[in-house]
């Protein structure tokens, strides 16, 4: 486990995820589809704080977001997986700093999350027309990847500073 989770205010920024999900600003949408704020927050958190903290944060976010949506489908499993995966990447390789890398990781994460939701909704019969799901998946992955270099870079920079100071 890293040390970021011990900083209360760092963890408190996670509250912005449900807040932004509910507020859903219209100017940050593509074709009416909002970005995955959970992915945008979880990516820098896991990269800085490691796989265990990333998985726990993913689980917490998933549980909160599941409570904000209709139906029984869950975002938690994929967010746990993403938190763990991104945490390993942050621990093992060279520090990720390039905007393209962040955008690519966010794109993959958002696409994986969208694919999981698409499958769950389709299996439950809550999405009779898979084409609508593909449209949402593509639009959400795109807008998340476009915002990642901006949002994730800032969070990554700040949290790395905090982590280096505290260590």
């Amino acid at each position, binding site marked *: 486990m890293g040390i970021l989770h011990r900083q209360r205010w760092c963890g408190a920024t996670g509250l912005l995820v449900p807040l932004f999900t*509910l*507020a*859903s600003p219209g100017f940050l*949408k593509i*074709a*009416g*589809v*909002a970005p995955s704020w959970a992915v945008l927050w979880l990516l820098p958190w896991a990269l800085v704080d490691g796989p265990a903290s990333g998985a726990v944060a993913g689980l917490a976010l998933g549980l909160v977001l599941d409570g904000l*949506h*209709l*139906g029984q*489908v869950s975002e938690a499993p994929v967010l746990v997986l993403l938190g763990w995966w991104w945490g390993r990447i942050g621990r093992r390789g060279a520090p990720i700093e390039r905007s393209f890398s962040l955008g690519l990781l966010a794109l993959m994460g958002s696409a994986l999350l*969208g694919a999981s*939701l698409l499958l769950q*909704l389709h299996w439950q019969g*809550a*999405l*009779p*027309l898979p084409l*609508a*799901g593909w449209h*949402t998946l593509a639009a*959400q992955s795109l807008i998340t990847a476009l915002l990642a270099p901006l949002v994730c870079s800032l969070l990554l920079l700040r949290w790395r500073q905090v982590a280096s100071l505290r260590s």
Partner: protein
Amino acid sequence: MNGRFSRVPTLQKIAEAWPWWLLLLALVGVRLSKGAFFADGYALLSRPFWPGSAQSEWLRSAQQVSDQSRLADLERDNRRLRQMLQLDRTGPGLVSAAVISREPSGWWQQLELGKGRLDGLSPGDAVLAPGGLIGRVASVTPTTARVALLTDGSSRLGVWVGRTQQHALLLGLGTPRPRLQFLEKDPGVRPGDVVSTSPASTLLPPNLTVGVVQSINEQAVPAPDGLVQLSAPVDAVDWVQVRTKAR
């Protein structure tokens, strides 16, 4: 004798008064034509002073007031008759609520309202916007309510096509236009027909406008289906009205 004859008007004098005869003829013409010339002339002269848009607005608003009054009377009558038939289990309660969060596109099509259980809202309540029904309350908290829009993939609603007097099923697809699934092979419905909630509905208030049929697919099996354009603009709604159930 000569003097008495000289007092009788002669033909010459009658002929000399021809302008007066013409005037008399014109007056007879006016009489016979029911004053057509005068009416047309008056219309021509008074055209700049005819009632303008302001007057027509007054008339229109007066007509609207009259229509609304008639509508209220008819609704009252309808409610009374439905209560006599024991069809009406819903009260007349209407709660206005602000839309505090909206997600009309995306994985879920839902709204979040700024009123909840404390204001009498409960799951299943119909949610109306200017234009018609947009969804039903899916869950409530003490101060908020989550609305599943008719476009959501999980939405299933029995509807009624008034022109053909037929029932159908409105299925949300996750797209802006839900699908109208007919129950019969030859529904006779065509684009432009208005879709509303069933007049015999006990789950939802009856006769609420839902939308307009956009297209029909006659080739679909086992029964034709179509797409419906909802009449209420979900993207632009800031306030809605919730029909609460009677306590």
